[in-house]
């Protein structure tokens, strides 16, 4: 077997998604479901998923809630602090497009108005199973990114 460090690193990337969670003014419904994933019932550590408080050490950003003009700066800042390769997951109806608040004067809309989103999780709130599945799908997106990079294109960003 040929020793291929890049192959090993890619394996590591797919097996160790560290998650940072940011609440853009959510009602906490989605946030409680995110925390439910960490409990022994769902135990996301089986997939190597760890909830980290520091965006600099995270691979996946979970965003819940309606984005407003105040926290869009913070959201962009958090996203910029994450190191490549990275993925973003928008949680719940509010994260997708603002939900029932989308017409409100202080709501920007979905998370994708501010930063590129890889996976959308619908629901109000989404089930923990859906959130875990979203992280797994996000890993697939990261893998696509990496394969693109392997084919000679530079990873963007």
């Amino acid at each position, binding site marked *: 077997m040929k020793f291929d460090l890049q192959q090993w*690193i890619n394996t*590591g990337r797919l097996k*160790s998604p560290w998650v940072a969670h940011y609440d853009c003014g959510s009602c906490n419904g989605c946030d409680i479901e995110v925390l439910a994933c960490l409990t022994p019932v769902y135990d996301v*550590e089986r997939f*190597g998923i*760890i909830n*980290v408080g520091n965006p600099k050490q995270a691979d996946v950003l979970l965003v819940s809630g309606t984005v407003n003009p105040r926290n869009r700066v913070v959201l962009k800042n958090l996203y910029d602090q994450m*190191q490549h390769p990275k993925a973003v997951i928008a949680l719940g109806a509010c994260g997708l497009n603002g939900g029932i608040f989308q017409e409100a004067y202080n709501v920007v809309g979905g998370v994708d108005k501010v930063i590129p989103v890889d996976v959308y999780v619908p629901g109000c709130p989404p089930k923990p199973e859906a959130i875990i599945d979203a992280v797994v799908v996000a890993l697939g997106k990261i893998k696509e990114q990496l394969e693109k990079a392997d084919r000679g294109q530079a990873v963007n960003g």
Partner: protein
Amino acid sequence: MIAKLFFGLIGLAVAPVLGGIIAGLDRRVTARMQSRFGPPLLQPFYDVLKLLGKRPSAVNAWLVLCSYLTLMSSALAVFLFFFQADLLLIFFVMTIGAVFQVMGALSVNSPFSQVGAQRELLQMLAYEPLIIMVFVGIALKTGSFSIENIYALEQPLLFSLPILFLALGVALTIKLRKSPFDISTSHHGHQEIVRGLLTEYTGPQLAMLEIAHWLDVVLILGLCSLFWSTGMIGMLVLLAATYFVEMLVDNISSRLTWQWMLTRVLAPTMVLCLVNILWLYTL
């Protein structure tokens, strides 16, 4: 001499693998204690490989330098241990790594990093006297600070230095930053001041510190193994039991303050160490 050098190099090569597997076992057993299934055994290796593949974005050059120096000093300390060098030399080399880790954290303005670094200094203040006391006890028993002399003993050190072994266990818990001493930073899922000391270390730098931590674990378990130097099986049983108690304590206790660590843990343990050393004198 050549044989010792060879032994040292073998030890240096095996230590990171061993340390990673111990970390993986630790996470798995911890998960089982919390009635979870837990990550795969090789999870720490996946984590480190991933971190190594991250695009570097260190805040300043100090962080990079400090992470290299921490890794180098931990590796050198492990090499010296398997080389059967002087215990005090190993201790000083180990300390250099810890100091540089703190200096790296202090070189950044982040308040989490700063607080974590200050707390790490307090943790060093707590575990270093204990380790020194253990070494003094070993030196009184064997007549020198050299590891070779310990292997020449006929009776395991544990019988003459039982309290010092206990003190080494406390030092191990503080050095590993396990509960109740995960004050400066914490491991895997836990959050204490956003992982304090490690807040500003990212990507490859964090991976290097993680490997350095594995090496430190192997080194301190190596120091524990000196207490049963007469037989391989006894040594392994002692190490397994020690580490299992570490994990148990980690899971049944909550994080406490540094004041508690200094007044209620360091002070009594130091007195107990003195009792053991006095007892050695009277024998």
